[in-house]
Every structure is written in C-alpha cells, then in structure tokens.
C-alpha cells in the first residue's frame, strides 16, 4: 500500500479542491455535485447500486471467461501453427477497428434484451488484449533456450510446453490486467443500449432524471469494480508466477 501513498494523497488533495470550488461558486448539484454529496448519494442508494452491480458483475465474469477461453484457444493455435497465425492475426487486428458502439446495437437486435449481448460485448472488448499478449508471449522465446532443448532432442511439442507456454505467462497476465480494466466498461456499454438491470441502466436512468450525484456514484462503483478485478488478477499473477519479479 505504501507505494501508492503519494497517489492517494494527491487524489485526496484534488477532491478537497473540487469540494472547495463547488461550495465557493455555489455550483448547482445537477451540474457538478461535490464529493461529499457523491458520498451521500452512494450511501443513500447503496442497496440499489448493489443490486445493479450484481448484474454487471455477472455479465463481466461470463464475458471475461469467454474472452479468456477464446483468447487461449486462438493464441495456442496461432502459436502452434504458423499458417493459422498468418490467416487470422491480421483479421483479429482488423476487428479492433470496428467501434464497439456500432456492434452493440446489432447484438441486441440479434440476441434480444437478455444477458447474452452484454456478455458478448465484454468478451469482444477483453478478447483482443488477451489474445495479442499471449501470441506475443509465445513468440518471445529465447532462441538459445530453444537451441538448448533442440540439442537435447526435444520435440516441437516439448518445446512448446516446457519453454513457450511458461515463458508467455508474464505477457499473458499483462494482457489480462488490461482486459480487466476494460471489462466493466464493456458491460456498461452493453447495458446502455438496452437492459432492465445493471450499472449502465442505473446510470442512464439517473442521468435522464438529472440526478447527477447518483450518476457520479455509479461511476465510483464502476471504477471500484474495475480496480477490484485488476487487483484479483494481480494477486493471481503473483500466485501463479512466484518466480516473476515485479519491477
């Protein structure tokens, strides 16, 4: 916790300035609520926020799992068979140029107002960093280590599982962390476009009623959720790679 001390201090400092500015200029709450008001809104609506968060968390968990599975399968195929990589990799990169905001409404048209379209949006958002980081990790084998194993008489599969796979872990987890921070946002975007429950829904409703303090409250929750996912991945990374020194 110590290494975040300066950031936390600066953050609190900014909040104080924010509070002071809002009070000093008497800014209307529906334009910019003060941090204290946001805090109050958080506690007032906590039960409701929790209920909506639960929905969002479920979407994120499903989407994230789906993205990890798809990412691992694709990256492994690309790592093992160069042909697959040659065909798919450019297409995967190309797919990222399609704005998610354009795809999400289509998903709703195709799959309806249920869980599935949101899960797919989360998966689409998370899948790219996971796949790319794993592919690059698998490729970044030390050529000399490969040579050493070849000289020992290792088969391509033995090299893959003893060197490439474990060697790709740090890069893979870096991709997971990026995805984790995007994942909640993906779910919220999905919910904006049509849902009956979830933080995105809460946000749209409060926004339409000019309950700006509550909009901010939902933003705080979204950030917290993203941070928690990020933290869980970091803990998992330490557990899976005790040998890896964080710099």
């Amino acid at each position, binding site marked *: 916790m110590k290494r975040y001390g300066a950031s936390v201090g600066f953050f609190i400092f900014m909040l104080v300035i924010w509070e002071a500015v809002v009070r000093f200029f008497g800014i209307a709450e529906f334009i910019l609520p003060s941090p204290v008001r946001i805090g109050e809104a958080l506690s007032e609506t906590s039960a409701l926020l929790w209920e909506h968060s639960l929905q969002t968390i479920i979407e994120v968990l499903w989407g994230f799992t789906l993205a990890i599975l798809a990412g691992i399968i694709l990256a492994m195929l690309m790592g093992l068979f160069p042909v697959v990589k040659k065909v798919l990799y450019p297409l995967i990169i190309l797919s990222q140029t399609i704005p998610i905001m354009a795809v999400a409404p289509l998903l709703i048209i195709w799959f309806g107002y249920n869980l599935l379209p949101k899960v797919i949006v989360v998966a689409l958002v998370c899948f790219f960093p996971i796949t790319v980081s794993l592919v690059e990790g698998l490729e970044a084998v*030390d050529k000399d*280590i490969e040579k050493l194993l*070849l*000289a020992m008489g290792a088969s391509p599969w033995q090299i893959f599982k003893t060197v490439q796979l474990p060697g790709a872990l740090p890069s893979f987890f870096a991709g997971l962390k990026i995805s984790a921070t995007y994942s909640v946002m993906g779910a919220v975007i999905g919910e904006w476009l049509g849902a009956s429950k979830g933080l995105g829904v809460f946000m749209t409703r409060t926004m339409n009623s000019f309950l700006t303090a509550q909009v901010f409250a939902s933003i705080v929750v979204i950030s917290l959720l993203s941070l928690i996912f990020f933290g869980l991945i970091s803990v998992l990374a330490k557990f899976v790679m005790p*040998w890896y020194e964080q710099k």
Partner: protein
Amino acid sequence: MLDIINLAKTYEAAPGKKRQTVRVPTLDNISLQVKKGEFVSIVGPSGCGKSTLFNLISGLERPDEGQILLEGREITGEKGHVSYMLQKDLLLPWRTILDNCLLGMEIQGNSRGQARKKAHALLEEFNLSIYEKSYPHVLSGGMRQRIAFLRTMLANKEILLLDEPFGALDAYTKSEMHDWLMSVWHKYSSTILFITHDVEEALFLSDRIYVLSARPATVKLTLAVNLPRPRSRKMLVSEEFIELKGQLLQALFEER
C-alpha cells in the same frame, strides 16, 4: 570416443538488403578426437567458427562435408547424443533449481520421480541442495553456472560440450569454477570438449588443446598438455606452463 573427420561448413549469408547471398566458408577440413575421460579444449580467434563446430556436433546443424562419429557410430546431423552447454547459463526462470536440473531427463522421457531423486542426490553432493527450491534469479553468476553445468551432466550423455561456460565470470569466480570443474570431472570421469579463448584456462584444464585458425577455421595446432594432475595454481608460473603458453599464443597471434 568422439571422432570428427574432415568437417566442412559454409554459410549462405545475405548481407544488407541485397538479394544475392555471399558464401561464408566457416569450417574447413576440421578433424579432431576426444578419448574417453579426456578434457579437450578448443581455442581460436573470435568468430572463427567454434560455436559452429558445437552446433554441428550436437546435431543442430548439418555439415556440408565430413563425418561425426560417437563410439564409432555415425551421428552426423542427429540430435540428442551429446550434452551441450551454451555460452549463457539459460536456466529457466520459472523453474526452481531442482526442476531446472531435471530438464534433460524430462526431455528424454524419464520418470519425474526418479529424475528428482537423481538431481537431488547430485545437488546434495555439491552442497547446492539448499538452493533446490529457489528460483534462478536469486543466485549469483557463479552459482547459476554450476547449476547449468550440473543440468548438463544430468542429461547423462557420454560427452559434454561446454561453450565458453566461464566467459562472463570475474577472474576470482572463474578460478574457483576451474577447481570445482576439475573436481567434478575427476570424480565422474566425464569426457569434456571445452571452448574458450582464455589461453591460461585452456592450459590449466586440458589434456589436449586444438588451436583453430581464423575463418575458415582449420586445425592450426594440436598441443598435448602433459602437466601432472591434480593441477594447482603454482603450475601457472612453472617453466613448462610458460613454454606451452608461448606456443599457444604464437599460434594464435599468427592468425591476426
């Protein structure tokens, strides 16, 4: 035990962006021999093709001409017959020291339990078992090199190829490693083929030394080192040693 007969290798290199390739004759008519239990060194100017020779012996590459025989059987171009230790220690950072030592046996498909037992016994013997559960990044350069060497030994091949294993170590650690290597070699009567460009190192360790010429490498001089064993630091200033060193240096300097 190991017979290398008239080996030749030429690389096709493409310098710059030009399409046409140039031929880089690297090894030319190299013949050498290592007998069972011998310690043989190869010295030669930088870039003459020493590592290339090891790549050929280990089967990573094929020679254009010539043969490589192990115990009379041709192994030219075949992998998995010799233990090869490359210039870097190449310990896998995600494996503990013990698991790093298992690598060779694992690749050969030995049972893990038995491999573990063997590796543990060897580490114990060299007072390295306290590091068994550590990861390589906590070890010093000299320690890592010892582990890498034991891993090479545990691959259990009749001959060890060591490519400048101590090149990156400081002088003090290096001489410690020499004594250590000598004791291991003696105890296990291993057969070692050793690359170095350190003339004193070669003389201190070897029974025989091959001096290679600049590229394309040919065998320029074969020098028998008949200093008594076990060798001691005192020999480094003996008349015989200095005489041999003079011969070696002269052969090397003619290549400049």
